[in-house]
């Protein structure tokens, strides 16, 4: 009975969090769309700072991760394909695998760990030091002021990062193909593009847009509901990263399934 009660409790609280995160998401969309009509714009400086932080700051690490992943996929697939003398198929395997799956997902995971955690920690600290309350007393909405710029920063930058990560991952595979498998560089590239289609790229980018929404909303939500001093900020940060990771993998599965059945 106790066990069932506990499961029930977890389900109920998960449902409540989901509802609150959705409410935050709709508030964010409200300020984005209806705010300008009320002559309450979101600050350009704030958005710019977030674009730089989320995008340019994450570029090197995202490229790094993607580059080595490209190399790993190339080697792992060559390990299998070389038995059939089909080494050239390494090219499309890397290209399609990176564009559809690993580029968007790994970039999102890196950004969730870096930017999502920073968002939760920053907003959490602002919450426990009364700064959020100070904004509210000045009749400044924390969602317009803090959440919307972070949301936009990720929404714009995560797909951009994903494109760069895709290119870098394919380049990593290319290096293995050319220098280790002795494939002709020109043939490697044409073969990649022969198999990789436009839809492989755009489905990947759709995923990265969804991941951007997840990372920004979870980070802001966890930050804004922080309680209990430094310990609370630590908890909020951890919880934000863990929740983002789980949701990214979950939504990746759902979206992959969706595209698999609809975009044949």
């Amino acid at each position, binding site marked *: 009975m106790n066990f069932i009660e506990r499961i029930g409790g977890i389900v109920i609280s998960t449902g409540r969090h989901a509802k609150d995160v959705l409410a935050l998401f709709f508030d964010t969309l409200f300020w984005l769309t209806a705010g300008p009509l009320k002559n309450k714009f979101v600050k350009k400086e704030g958005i710019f700072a977030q674009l730089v932080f989320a995008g340019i700051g994450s570029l090197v690490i995202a490229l790094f991760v993607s580059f080595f992943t490209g190399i790993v996929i190339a080697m792992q697939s060559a390990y299998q394909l070389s038995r059939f003398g089909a080494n050239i198929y390494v090219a499309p395997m890397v290209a399609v695998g990176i564009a559809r799956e690993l580029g968007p997902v790994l970039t999102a995971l890196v950004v969730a760990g870096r930017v999502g955690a920073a968002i939760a920690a920053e907003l959490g600290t602002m919450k426990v*030091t009364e700064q959020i309350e100070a904004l509210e007393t*000045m009749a400044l909405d924390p969602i317009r002021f803090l959440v919307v710029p972070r949301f936009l920063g990720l929404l714009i930058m995560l797909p951009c990062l994903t494109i760069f990560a895709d290119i870098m991952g394919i380049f990593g595979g290319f290096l293995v193909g050319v220098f280790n498998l002795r494939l002709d560089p020109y043939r490697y590239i044409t073969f990649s593009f022969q198999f990789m289609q436009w839809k492989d790229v755009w489905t990947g980018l759709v995923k990265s847009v969804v991941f951007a929404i997840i990372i920004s909303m979870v980070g802001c939500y966890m930050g804004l509901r922080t309680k209990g001093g430094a310990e609370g900020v630590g908890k909020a940060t951890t919880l934000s990263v863990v929740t983002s990771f789980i949701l990214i993998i979950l939504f990746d599965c759902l979206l992959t399934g969706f595209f698999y059945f609809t975009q044949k």
Partner: protein
Amino acid sequence: MEKEVVIKSENVAKKFGDRTVLDGVSLEIYRGETFVIMGGSGCGKSTMLRHLIGALKPDSGKISLLGKDLSKLTDDELDTVKKKIGMSFQSSALFDSMNIGENVSLPLKEHTKLDKSVIDIVVKMKLEMVGLRGFEDLMPSQISGGMRKRVGLARAIAMDPEIVFYDEPTAGLDPIVAGVIDKLIIDLSKKLAITTVVVTHDMKSVFSIADRIAMLYEGRVLEVGTPDEIRKSKNPMVQQFISGSADGPIKFFQQKDDYLEQLIK
């Protein structure tokens, strides 16, 4: 002359879970006066302050600020009222990511259409009032606690509010800085003729700044009066609080179970 009531609370009650924090608080605060809400830790005075600025909604009872019933306002109307009040927070609550000048100018930039050059002048004037002109470019982390409090004060008065609220303005400051803050509060309320509401348990500060005092205990108002009336109060709880003695009707230790029983258990 009839005094104008700018803040009025009627039977405000609030519970957090099972714990009753406010148990029917009724206060009237007049225009231009300095009103101090005092009481021990956990007596509900900070919660009361948060109700007065519209940050918390009471479970029952009514609060009106500048003649407007807070519970009946829409979000936009509430924002209009909030622009007429300023709040100085216990932890100063300066925005870490902005320098001092930006902290003070933020409400002006957001709520007025003033030119940047005009805003710069206003910021300098406000910082001059708290004795910190020339510190605009420093970050909040680079200045002392007392200076942060003063910047918080400058920010609270940036919009020329009609009412300024102070939450524990002297908590955690050394006696001299606390005296400076007290003097500043008096100066500002006299110079700008604003209504001032202070929540504190610092008795020295209470008697030096207050026009009237309300003492809160366990979510209820024990007594309201001028500093002299409070000093001469016959209520033993008030007397114990003023003298700060450990023995008296206010029990510091809350004994829920029998001590011996709990030790053996």
